[in-house]
């Protein structure tokens, strides 16, 4: 029983970087922009978070710096793609490569250092409840922030006027423009939010999960987060399902091996990707479904009529 709690605790924490990155990217894509630079923004967040946390001794400052670094990177992407109208796919790939390189350069003096990880919260009485206590009330604050963020985004997109405008811009930027909304400004705001989220996701890796800096430490999580957005068919709630499928399966299969359960780890590692492909096929097999799910203006350049 105790072991089951430990395993579940591991599963709850493992996908948090994915949740942050994917929920940010979801907002970006709902506004009609495809930012493939997620991996680059995450790694910049990882080094920014780690270096600032180490130098200032404050993890909060580190997390804030990570959000800022991610947002700056996203801002550059926004200027290039929204103002200068460069190709979003190519610019996003460039941002990833740029981010990995810049983070490596930035991190040169930081390899081999280590910070103390973020303390777990302890709520009087609640955290001490057997089973439910350690599972629900004894994580670090960022875990709760991630969940709150998903709920907040879901509420924002479906219940607020601003969310409606953001979706309108993503579905039909010409119409949104015609009725007077500033398409570029909305998209820039979405991008900055997405960048900040990706930065925090990266910082979660470098300051909480493995509190050190090594090059490439995001190891492809940005790409997985992109896949999760598609898997979630652009719905916030499903981002959680996707992230936990990806992250949970990884942790579960490590435990399965430790127990000596004889299944090939490769099949389990493959599983989330197979599911993503399946979801892609299902949502794109007819045109009506595609338009129900994917933002109609996704990755299309917006030329403001003058």
């Amino acid at each position: 029983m105790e072991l089951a709690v430990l395993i579940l605790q591991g599963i709850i924490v493992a996908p948090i970087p994915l949740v942050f990155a994917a929920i940010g990217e979801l907002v970006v894509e709902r506004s009609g922009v495809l930012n493939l630079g997620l991996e680059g923004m995450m790694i910049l967040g990882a080094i920014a978070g780690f270096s600032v946390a180490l130098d200032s001794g404050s993890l909060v400052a580190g997390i804030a710096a990570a959000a800022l670094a991610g947002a700056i990177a996203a801002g550059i992407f926004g200027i290039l793609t929204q103002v200068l109208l460069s190709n979003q796919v190519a610019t996003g790939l460039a941002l990833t490569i740029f981010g990995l390189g810049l983070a490596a350069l930035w991190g040169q003096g930081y390899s081999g250092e280590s910070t103390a990880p973020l303390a777990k919260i302890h709520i009087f009485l609640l955290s001490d409840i057997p089973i439910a206590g350690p599972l629900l009330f004894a994580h670090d604050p960022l875990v709760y922030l991630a969940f709150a963020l998903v709920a907040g985004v879901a509420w924002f997109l479906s219940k607020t006027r601003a969310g409606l405008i953001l979706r309108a811009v993503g579905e039909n930027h010409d119409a949104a423009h015609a009725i007077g909304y500033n398409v570029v400004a909305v998209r820039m705001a979405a991008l900055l939010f997405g960048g900040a989220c990706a930065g925090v996701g990266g910082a979660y890796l470098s300051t909480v999960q493995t509190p050190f800096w090594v090059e490439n430490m995001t190891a492809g999580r940005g790409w997985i987060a992109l896949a999760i957005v598609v898997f979630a068919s652009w719905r916030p709630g499903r981002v959680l399902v996707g992230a936990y499928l990806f992250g949970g399966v990884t942790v579960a299969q490590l435990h399965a091996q430790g127990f000596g359960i004889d299944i090939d780890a490769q099949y389990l590692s493959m599983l989330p990707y197979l599911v993503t492909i399946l979801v892609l096929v299902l949502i794109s097999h007819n045109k009506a479904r595609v338009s129900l799910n994917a933002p109609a203006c996704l990755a299309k350049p917006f030329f403001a009529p003058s």
Partner: protein
Amino acid sequence: MKHVMRILAAGAVAAALSVGAAGAAEKVKVGFVYVGPVGDHGWTYEHEQGRLAVEKAFGDEVKTTYVENVSEGPDAARVIQQLARGHDIIFTTSFGFMNPTLKVAKRFPKVKFEHATGFKRAPNVSTYSARFYEGRYVIGLIAGKVTKTNTIGYIASFPIPEVVRGINAAFFAAKSVNPTVKFKIVWVNTWFDPGKEADAARALIDQGADVLMQHTDSPAAMQISEEKGIFAFGQASDMIKFGPNVQLTSIIDNWGPYYVARVKAVMDGTWDSQDTWDGFGPGMVKMAAFSKRIPEDVRAMAAKARDDIGAGKLHPFTGPINKQDGSPWLKAGETASDSDLVGMNFYIEGVEGSLPK
């Protein structure tokens, strides 16, 4: 003084190529292909130390280049081919670069290639590796002695002979000093993914392992061990910075002398295709300082094993040893042949679980 030029490889994977200052034509040009980043504090870091040793030994007579983060797929062939145009000798430093190296070598017969940890050679392709299993034997002895739960966690990368050999050597040694010891082996299917390595370490610790060994390249597992207060062994580099209280020792790869010798051979025109497999004896494998937390007598035992192996008095695989299925492998007193070790694709008796294919 070095210019650093970053060339961007197309596709999702970025390969960064840094090139030393362009120099006179008579310099010997040496290329290195790394599977991870030079700052990984593990496998690639030590190869980078080897490259720096070459630069230090020959100064202006050589020009070295390295490409880091090259994935073991089609990218590898592309990078090696790029280097082959304009380099005299190229070191490809990961097992998965074997076939790409041979493929490119065929097309560039004048360029010398050195492939680490592989088993296929050609007239212009040498192979070299270190007998890491000698180090694994020593850490196995220590682990068997210090474990209280009799459960050793082992984070393994890919089921290739190199890794399997390490598991067998460590288990055989641990079992020899502690007959009730068990190994929990987790395959992570990656050489380098700190997050996943950390998750594997947590899983093993949660399941009762109180000593961790790893055959992956980042210090993540060491750091988790430090956090949880359980013992661990470093891999490839000294990882003491990440586990100041819990690292018992570390197996260190020491490539410098070999790289210097091979570059010298190219300069002298004496280079030929050969297979090098060195261990403690010539110093290609070293152990980091033994931790004070290892009991005195165990430290002495480990040091003796290390010295005996180096002197050729002890072979880590000395029979009787059966294979996992109970069939005999080595008779009493018989030692494993190199060809058996090179292709090792079986667990020895007592290791639990089946070897992934």
